[in-house]
């Protein structure tokens, strides 16, 4: 029994996934991907606030050259916890586990992910890992840097390395299982007619992300496990006093952690592809290239990890291989950027909140990505490695890029998720605040880095003062910019006007179901006869 869903179906239904069941238990034991997405949304936001609080304290400490706000040990724990919380507990799960979880099955025309229980298990693993890590924070924190470099982490640090390591280890499995679930879902749950070449670009990028999660994360798990074993039993694996090589740990760590940066940015690419198309009402320029670039990035991403180790004892020749390959990874990113820009050409662009984030993303990602080229250039990296230049590089991509894309995606799909509209004026205003605050925070850090200010410094020489003041000022503005959406989105959840099924006249199966969608998404599997981005067609004909 396959019917094309009628246009009337998109009208409001009295029973949706939010009000289908009530009570705490119906949330904590749910296997509905949409509810699990909401669980993730809440927890990810909480972790972002925690990580942001650490960032705020870091910036306050750096307001003056002397280390006068907190003790150096505390400062070290601040940036460590900031990095760990932001990366493992906020950014990696953000787009995939919140937006992906909610949207993927609907985009594919499925009732749920392939393994709904596994999906819930992922969330629990994530929470267990997160709570262990928060416990480590409360018990006094961990001060190894998010990179856990040995032998400091295994032999010298007297902070709560073990608990944190276990927390990250467990969260790793959450990430693996989410990725596995998405891949299987993409392969087996697509609606009839939804061929690979018709698939939305968001799907492509999440598919690529999931590949990295499945193939990379286990190596992080083993690296962390070895750190734990070495620390607990005092045996020699990486400890040079016992015959080990600390650099081997760095190999294992970066084998995961370099691809992990693409776990953080690929989903953002996917969101941006959706936003750019739907707000300029124009099919992407070069669909095949944009889709293929995602997979190419996922694969190449595994070949460049040694570029984090140019100043170690890594062999000159291995360094050259890694540097060489690092430049290749720039090409698929370049393809994406150029194609997005080309898509705008002769479009019909409207500037609602999500689109502002999308354009901001392109602008900032370009800078972040291009500064990656300095770092991949061996001769220059020798100078800027472990300075604020690197800090600026990755915040440009991760905050200016991924976080902006996440916010853009949240705003874009918010009507679908909540069934309510938010005030667009406030949305546009805070997007602007975020953009300004961001640049003020992180642009000065490039200069600081080239001047030679090392990262992870609790106190710094006076000549770096002025630029650090700019940076701290920017961070406060940025904080406000993040705070505003928090307020008006929560407000709109309760008081916002009802959202129509498709407030943006966007394309994609998720806009064919009511807002908020019913528990089973579709009354019957929809039949897809067109590629996703056919703006010229009347909505009713699309499905």
């Amino acid at each position, binding site marked *: 029994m396959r019917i094309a869903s009628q246009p009337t179906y998109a009208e409001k239904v009295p029973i949706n996934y939010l009000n289908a069941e009530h009570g705490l238990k119906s949330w904590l034991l749910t296997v509905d991907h949409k509810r699990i997405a909401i669980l993730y949304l809440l927890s990810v936001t909480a972790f972002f606030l925690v990580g942001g609080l650490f960032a705020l304290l870091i910036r306050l400490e750096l307001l003056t050259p002397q280390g006068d706000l907190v003790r150096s040990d505390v400062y070290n724990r601040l940036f460590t916890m900031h990095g760990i919380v932001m990366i493992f507990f906020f950014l990696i799960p953000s787009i995939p586990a919140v937006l992906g979880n909610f949207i993927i099955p609907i985009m594919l025309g*499925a*009732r*749920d*992910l*392939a*393994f*709904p229980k596994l999906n819930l298990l992922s969330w629990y693993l994530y929470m267990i890992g997160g709570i262990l890590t928060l416990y480590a924070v409360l018990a006094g924190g961990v001060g190894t840097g998010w990179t856990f470099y040995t032998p400091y982490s295994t032999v010298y640090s007297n902070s709560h390395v073990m608990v944190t390591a276990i927390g990250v280890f467990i969260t790793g499995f959450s990430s*693996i299982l989410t990725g*596995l679930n998405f*891949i*299987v*879902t993409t*392969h*087996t*749950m697509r609606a009839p007619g939804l061929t690979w070449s018709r698939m939305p670009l968001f799907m492509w990028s999440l598919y690529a992300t999931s590949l990295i999660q*499945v*193939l*990379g*994360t*286990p*190596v992080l*798990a*083993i*690296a962390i*496990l*070895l750190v734990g*074993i070495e620390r607990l*039993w*005092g*045996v*020699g*694996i990486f400890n040079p*006093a*016992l*015959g*080990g*090589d600390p650099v*081997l740990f760095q*190999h*294992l760590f970066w*084998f995961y952690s370099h691809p992990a940066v693409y776990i953080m940015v690929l989903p953002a690419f996917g969101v941006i592809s959706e936003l750019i198309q739907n707000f300029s009402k124009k099919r992407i320029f070069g669909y095949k290239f944009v889709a293929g670039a995602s997979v190419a990035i996922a694969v190449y991403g595994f070949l460049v990890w040694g570029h984090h180790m140019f100043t170690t004892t890594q062999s000159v020749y291995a360094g050259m291989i890694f540097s060489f390959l690092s430049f290749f990874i720039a090409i698929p990113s370049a393809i994406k950027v150029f194609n997005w820009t080309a898509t705008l050409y002769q479009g019909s662009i409207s500037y609602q909140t999500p689109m502002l984030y999308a354009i901001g993303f392109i602008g900032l990602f370009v800078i972040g990505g291009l500064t990656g080229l300095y770092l991949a250039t061996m001769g220059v990296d020798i100078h800027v490695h472990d300075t604020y230049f690197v800090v600026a590089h990755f915040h440009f991509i991760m905050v200016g890029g991924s976080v902006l894309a996440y916010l853009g995606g949240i705003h874009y799909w918010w009507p679908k998720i909540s069934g309510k509209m938010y005030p667009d004026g406030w949305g546009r205003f805070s997007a602007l605040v975020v953009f300004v605050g961001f640049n003020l925070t992180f642009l000065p850090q490039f200069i600081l880095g080239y001047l030679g200010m090392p990262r992870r410094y609790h106190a710094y020489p006076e000549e770096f003062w002025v630029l650090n003041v700019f940076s701290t000022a920017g961070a406060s503005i940025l904080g406000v910019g993040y705070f505003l959406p928090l307020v008006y989105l929560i407000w709109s959840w309760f008081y916002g006007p009802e959202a129509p099924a498709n407030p943006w006249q966007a394309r994609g199966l998720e806009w064919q179901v009511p807002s908020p969608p019913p528990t089973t998404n579709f009354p019957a*599997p929809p039949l897809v006869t067109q590629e996703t981005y056919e703006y010229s067609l009347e909505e009713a004909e699309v499905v």
Partner: protein
Amino acid sequence: MSETLTHSQHGTSPLQHQFDDLGQQWHANTIGMWLFLATEILFFGGLFVSYLVYRSTYPEAFAEASRHMDVLAGTVNTAVLIGSSLMMALAVQSAQLGANKLVQRFTLLTMFLGTVFLVIKVWEYYHKYTEQLIPGANFAYEGAMRHQVEMLFVFYFVMTGMHALHMFIGLGLLTYILILARRNAFSREYFFPAEVVGLYWHFVDLVWIFLFPLLYLIGAHYQGPVHK
């Protein structure tokens, strides 16, 4: 024995709500398991690459350390594990044919051999303990390359320990298969739980096939440091 798609002892269909038909469910489960095995390969891969780096750095010390392994126990265990893999394969085959009784019998045999493996493993560990060859805790080897020798024992315990952990998980999964078979759940159409667990069990066997020569056998012909 059940024939129809929707049949099982409790009258509920094995078809899960998110799937359209059993074929789709089977497909999802198989590729899910293969993906999981891919993850597992890289999990052990991290260990193997570390092993490789240190072995190529300290070839003599590793050979020397390997001489302290119990080759007999290792060989017997290899045979036991391969035997359990055979039983597993037969259990899966029986499930494919819907022969629930046979599934029960072969699953039990698989679990039995798996347990034998673990018992021998524990016995080996115990001997390492009495020989004072446990790194960190009581490592009494006092040769020239003490730390380098100890390193192989670290890998020995971590790798076989991880392997044993997987065996335990496998035993849990087999128990589940046993329960399904007791409920006569398997049929010619619905057998993939057994198949998927089988894949996992064979994978655990695979890992051991590599661990055995890499840990036990590299020192067999080694005569100690050469001093001409």
